[in-house]
Each structure stands twice: as C-alpha cells, then as structure tokens.
C-alpha cells in the first residue's frame, strides 16, 4: 500500500494551475513561512515529509525498548520513576509525530504496518543493546544530546505540524538529556565499579552517537533537496561537528574519556578534529544486520499483534454503543446522529 495516493494529473490547464501553485509554495518556503496541511504542496515534498516524520515517530516508539528493558531493574525508586516517565514521554512523542504524519494523509495504522514489515526505517541507534544501568545515563547524555542537535533546527522546519511538534519534543528531550547526564554524574561520585560502568557505557555509545547524524555529506543523497525545501536546515557534518564540540567539555567535567585518539582541538578551525565512525558498520546496521534490528521489530510486531483483539473490541464497543443509543432516539439512525453519538 503506498503511503500517499498518487495525484491524478491531466495535461493542459491542470499543469498550468500546478505551476502557479508551485510558485506560491516556493514563495512560502522563501519567506521561511510554514506550509500547513490545507496548503498545496508538491507530491515529492509530501512524500519526503511522510518518510521523515514517520521515521521520526517510529524512532520514538522503537526507542522505548532499549530503555524500557531497564525499568524493572532500576536501582532506586527515584531512578525508576525518572526512567518510566522518560519512556512514557517517548510514547507521547510518537503520538504527536504520528498525528503530524496523519495530516499528510496517512494513518497511524498504515505507518505501524510499514514499520513492522520493514518498509520504513527508524533511527539505527536503537539497534544497539543496553547492557548496563549506566546506559540509561549515556543514552540521555549522548543519544538524546545528538537527537536534540538534529531536532532543534527542525523546530523551524517548513511543515507546520512537524515544526510545532518538534518544539514540544525538544523541550522534553533536553529535560531527558539533563536527567541522563545527572545520573552519570551521580554514578561517577559513587564506587569504582560504578565509574567503570559509566566509562564502558560511553565507550560503546560514542561511535553510534556520531552515526546518528547520518552519513557524511558527500554520501547523503537527500540532503540538498531537503535543505532547499526547508525540511532540513543543516547538513549532517555540520551537526556532527556541533555535537562533538559541545560534548567534549561535558565529558571532561564528567571525568570520562571519549574513545577517539584522533579527537583534538584544532585552533585554526576553532573546532575539534575527530575520527570517523566505521561507516561499514553503519550501513550494515541500516540494512538490518545490527545487534538488535530483528529483536526490536519483532517486539513491536508482537505488541501490535497481541493488541489487535483489544483495538477490535474498542471499535466494536463504539459501534455497538452507537447503535444502542440511536435506537433510543425515535428511530433516527442517520449517519450524522451516529457520528455525534460516537464522540460522546
């Protein structure tokens, strides 16, 4: 099933109208104004957005798993509450983003089915395992930190519902990032074993975090067009550099080493030089061969399949309720009445 219906175009007048609409669209983008769901937009723009917003929504939902796995084992009641609330926020982010995608004419159910059939992707970072409680801190600090670097510019993205969702999401993400960093700080003040746990976790997540910005600019086929449309506002390499420059002083304050011998300050550039992640590993994980790809999708599919009878029951109950109620209203069973009843 295609994500978006193909437009029915006829040559002639239709084409002329489209040229005008396209000019208006470009002018809106040029003013850095928002495109809203009711506005005309090029089909390729709609497709790009559905792909990006859906991928983002899926990332939030799949991202619940690596952290969710540790809720049961959180080592203090306070940390359990923080972690559970954080994972719950991720479900909320998924909800906003699926709603933003729905304004582009694709349903949450269709998107979920594309996720569990492997036709749509999610952020590859979630295909790495969480192996210690320190990972709950490292994910907050590095993974959410990298996500924020990627996402803050999206608050100004050209599509209104996506940009507005991102404003709220970024606020919550920066809260999560702070909580993660605070966990690591606390653990570093603890025992030797805890400090070793933090370092080991940072060693594992550093390179995958750098990969979160995507392939180098010269290997990123969609970047140029996404930037021209204002969907994307910075290149992958620009954001990666920003992330490294911001992270280095934080690592120092924390007392951990970032596992890159090539990481040095370059006075001339006014920025850090740093090594490249293993891009072969990146593409392997993207292709589905990462440590947890199969497990993450299977988990999501199981939850979706196991919940089918509940969703069916809710629909049947809503429909049944409707019938019962309209039966009471002197035989008026018009569609309008039914719809009103359903919203009660």
């Amino acid at each position, binding site marked *: 099933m295609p994500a978006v219906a193909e437009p029915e175009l006829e040559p002639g007048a239709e084409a002329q109208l489209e040229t005008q609409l396209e000019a208006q669209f470009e002018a809106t983008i040029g003013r850095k104004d928002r495109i809203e769901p009711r506005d005309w937009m090029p089909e390729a723009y709609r497709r790009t957005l559905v792909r990006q917003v859906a991928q983002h929504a899926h990332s939030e939902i799949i991202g619940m798993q690596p952290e969710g796995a540790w809720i049961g084992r*959180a080592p203090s009641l306070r940390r359990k509450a923080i972690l559970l609330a954080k994972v*719950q926020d991720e479900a909320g982010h998924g909800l906003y983003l699926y709603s933003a995608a729905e304004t582009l004419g694709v349903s949450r159910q269709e998107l979920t089915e594309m996720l569990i059939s492997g036709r749509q992707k999610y952020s590859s970072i979630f295909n790495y395992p969480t192996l210690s409680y320190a990972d709950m801190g490292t994910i907050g600090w590095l993974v959410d930190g990298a996500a924020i670097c990627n996402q803050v510019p999206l608050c100004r993205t050209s599509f209104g519902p996506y940009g507005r969702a991102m404003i709220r999401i970024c606020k919550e993400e920066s809260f999560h990032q702070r909580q993660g960093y605070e966990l690591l700080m606390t653990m570093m003040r*603890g*025992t030797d074993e*805890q400090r070793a746990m933090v370092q080991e976790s940072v060693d594992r997540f550093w390179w995958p975090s750098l990969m979160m910005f995507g392939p180098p600019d010269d290997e990123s086929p969609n970047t140029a067009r996404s930037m021209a449309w204002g969907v994307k506002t910075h290149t992958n390499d620009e954001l990666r550099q920003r992330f490294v420059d911001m992270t280095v002083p934080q690592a120092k304050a924390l007392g951990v080493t970032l596992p890159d011998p090539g990481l040095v300050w370059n006075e001339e550039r006014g920025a850090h030089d740093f090594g490249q992640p293993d891009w072969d590993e990146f593409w392997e994980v993207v292709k589905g061969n990462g440590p947890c790809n199969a497990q993450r999708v299977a988990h999501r599919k199981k939850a979706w399949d196991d*919940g089918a009878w509940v969703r069916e029951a809710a629909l049947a109950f809503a429909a049944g309720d409707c019938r019962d109620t309209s039966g009471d209203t002197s035989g008026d069973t018009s569609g309008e009445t039914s719809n009103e009843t359903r919203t009660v």
Partner: protein
Amino acid sequence: MPDVRTHEPDDHDNAYAGLLVNDTHWAFGTDFEDPLAGVDTTVPDGVDPATLAAYCLMLGDDALVLSQRLAEWCSNAPDLEEDIALSNIALDLLGQARLLLARAAAADGSQVPALPDGSPVPDEDRLAFFRDAPQFRNVRLVEVPGGDFAQTVVRILLFSSWRLALLDRLTRSRDGVLAAVAAKAVKELTYHRDFAGRWFLTLARGTDESRRRLVAGLDALWPLWSELFETHDVERAAARSGIGVDPADVAADVEAVLDQVLAASGVDRPAVAPLAAVQGDGAAQPAHGRKGRDGGHTEALGALLAEMQVVARAHPGGQW
C-alpha cells in the same frame, strides 16, 4: 497565544546550555533526594511506631509491587494511548510507594535493612531493594503475573476500587503524613478506577473474544479478592489507634462499586473459591495460615523481586 510561526527557539539551540548548572528550573536536579524533605514525621501521641511502620509497609508494598507489574506493559500495550495510561498508573503507584516506604522508615528505623557502613542508599530504597520476599507485606493480588490486557484491566479495577475506599478513609488518619499521602493518592486512584471501569465495560461489550478474555481474567484473579478485606493484626492495631483503616470496614462499599460495574457489563460474579492461606513451619506463624500481609506469597513474588533488586543489590555502596 503568540503566533508559533514567528517562534524562533534560539534559546534551545544549544542542547548543553546550562547542563552543569544546578538551576531551579529543573524538577530533578541533584537535590530532591529525600521524598519527605521538610515534612514533620513525628509519630502521633499514643501510636506505636512499629505498628505505624508496618502498616505503611503494607500499603507501600501493595503499590510498589503492582507498579512493577504494570510497568511491564511499557512498550507492549495494545496501542500508544494505553501504553501511556498504564505507565501513568504505574508511576502514580510508584510515587505512593516511595512516600509510604519513606514514612515507614521515618517512623521506625529498626525495620530498615542494614547495609555496610557509609552506604549512601536512602532508607526507602533499602526497604524496596534489600528485603526478601517473606518480608514483603503486600496482598497477593498485586504480585501474580500480569496476564493479558483484560486481566490487567480486572486487576486495576479490583485493586483501585479497594485502595480508593481505604485511602479515602485514610485522609482522616491521625498521622499527618499518612493523611497527606492518602489525599494525593485519592485523586490518582479515582482516575485508575475510571480507566479500568471504562475498559471493563468496553471489553465486556466489545467482541466475543474480548468478553471471553475478560471473564477469564476475572476468574483468574477472583481467588485473591477476599484476602483484601481480611484484617491483619497490624491493620487492626493501626485502625484502633486512629492512624489506619480496617479493610473489613470498606468491604460493603467496595463490593457495591464492583456490583455496579459488573451489572453494567452484564458479567456475573465468578463462582471461584478464595485462595487458601498456607501454614508456615514456625511457632510465630498465625494459626490460620499465612497470606500476603503475613509475608506468605506466591512463587511469582520472588522472581519479580529478583529482577527489581538485581542492580541495587550488586552495588550496596552505590549511589544512583
């Protein structure tokens, strides 16, 4: 409301701004460690501190263990709305547990497990993570494995109907801390009961499959229902000294609520016998055998605690 299109979130551009500054903007800074900070925890006149602590552990353990069970739904629920709702209920109960365990520790420190000298583990965490199953005082309803969504709905309905009635009366406790905890919890439990009641009705009147599962879930949990209204000696003493509630006193109210939900749903009360008490082998065991409040539990609690406590116990000197 400002026009969002002109919103320029430059102030959020730097994800790391202020990360090291312990400003008051954040709810979870490095402070906020003591859940009862600034609260007067003096035990009221004429109240036995050990009874108060044991009573708080009962109510706290109920909330803690059910919270642990409900959190198992996280990322596994039928849809995102239910995932969020179940996490919400788990979080509310976790918050109640944290306050109640902290109250227990403040009332009678001798019930708090000892850890090596200098351990920074706070009292409420020592109680949660360093007691073994026989020391837990929760009713058995909260510890049995979760089952499907229908059984989860049944458990939340049974538990929250009972606990709401208990804590509603507990708002008049002579212990100011318990009264305050109860006042907060009553609002939360009202929502939990509403969530479960709506889903109970929905599943009962949804499809044949959902009704079948709902009735099966009710049958599965019913043997653990009557235990909730049996009065333990600690509860009797707590009620007598005006700090606690005798669960037998709320039975009629709770059964009336449940009957209302069952009637609206067209579901009969199950004809299933209560789960028997089990006699222990010590002279100190009550003659009638042990149930949850006596530390007599099902096999499931040990496994639940093994998961819950594994990280904390590996680091008795750790701080989190």
